């Protein structure tokens, strides 16, 4: 909880600093934004670790396929990174790059879920076979 308060404080100070710097030093303000975002993400990792431990615990209880859980966890990571990077791009004033990053994120998530799509297709075919 203490870390969370620290993260909030760092974020607020960074926003004020970026506001001051953006008038004179636009480049440094973008760099500062990227650096603080990375720092906050690193600080968030212990929280995520505990959350994924809980998810793994549920997975062990319900005997869910570990492959599906790994897809879910990867999707969370890809989704988070895509959103953060696209927002940084938007803050830097590059809308085209922001949209491209979102597109790449969606494509990677779709690529990740191809095995799930395949198993769903097999499932539907097996049901059709039962008719």
């Amino acid at each position: 909880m203490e870390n969370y308060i620290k993260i909030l404080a760092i974020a607020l100070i960074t926003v004020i600093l970026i506001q001051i710097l953006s008038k004179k030093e636009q480049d440094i303000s973008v760099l500062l934004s990227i650096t603080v975002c990375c720092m906050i993400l690193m600080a968030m990792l212990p929280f995520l670790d505990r959350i994924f431990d809980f998810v793994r615990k549920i997975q062990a209880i319900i005997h869910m396929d570990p492959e599906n859980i790994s897809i879910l966890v990867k999707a969370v990571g890809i989704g988070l990174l895509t959103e953060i990077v696209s927002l940084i791009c938007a803050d830097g004033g590059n809308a085209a790059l922001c949209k491209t990053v979102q597109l790449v994120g969606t494509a990677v998530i779709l690529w990740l879920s191809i095995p799930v799509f395949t198993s769903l297709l097999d499932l539907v075919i097996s049901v059709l076979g039962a008719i």
Partner: protein
Amino acid sequence: MKRIILVLIIITGLITVIPEVYGAEMDFTAPQVPDSGRNLLPYIPESFAEGLLTVLDGVGALIYPAFRSACKGAIQIMGILLISAFLSGFSNTAVPVFRLVGCVCISLILLSTSNTFIRLGVDTIHELSAYGKLLLPVMTASLAAQGGITEASALYAGTAAFDAVLASLITGIMIPGVYAFLILSISSCFTEIKMLERIKEGIKGLITWALKIILYVFTGYLAITGVVSGTTDAMTLKAAKITISGVVPVVGGILSDASEAVLVGAATMKNAAGIYGILAVLAVCAGPFLQIGMQYLLLKITAAFGETTEGDGLSRLVKDFSAVMGLILAMTGVMGLLFLISTVCFMKGGA
């Protein structure tokens, strides 16, 4: 002395001739319970209450394993819904993946279970239909022997026709419809195409509507034939008794009384066969009905849990699977009810 010998000859002749006249055998015992229901009704009970208690006792023993297996599946689905709800909070971009993975996992768990229960329902319907084919001639013969020839033939024709129509409708149209409903549910879970949703609801509505209509028409048919043919048979029998006592000189009255005794005997046999028949239908139906019902209830509870944790996405899929269980329950119930109602009508019928 001559008169006594004459009376004895006529009574003996009456006993042997009556069954032939009504085209029936004097063996009015109901057919044995099929294998699937025999563990619930292993012997012929002395009374209806005793038989009912035996069936209920057997059903009670089935509750725990059915509940346990249904609970296991429900917990697994609740876990998937919880994981999906938990991870959905992180990223909007990844929400379709959570829904897809959740949909596949839930379908993998529920599809094999649902398939087992659909097969169980279909097997029960076939067994009921096969048992009905053995029970109905017995009930028809015993009702005819009691004097209700028109009523017996009308009841037999009606029940047999409705049984054939319902069995072929269920296996030929409704069960493929149920599978189509499942495929559409799985597809619409992650595509969110409204058209698929509407087609799915249409299929469900058609099946429910068809089952209701068949049961309404059947009960209506029974009500009409019961009133019309019952009155006809009563009048015919009364006229026959008056003719016998009037035409046959001297022993006409005695003959009329003897025929009354034979009719009472036939009624007793008919009721005994009917009671055993009802218990047998219950024994065949009760086990599968309870297992499917247990799965239906637990899926409903799971869907309600999903709505509170995950929202309307995956819980709608669970709700659809519970709807499938509801449809199978309805099909089995309608088939069982068809034979129960007709057996009761056979027992109630006769002059």
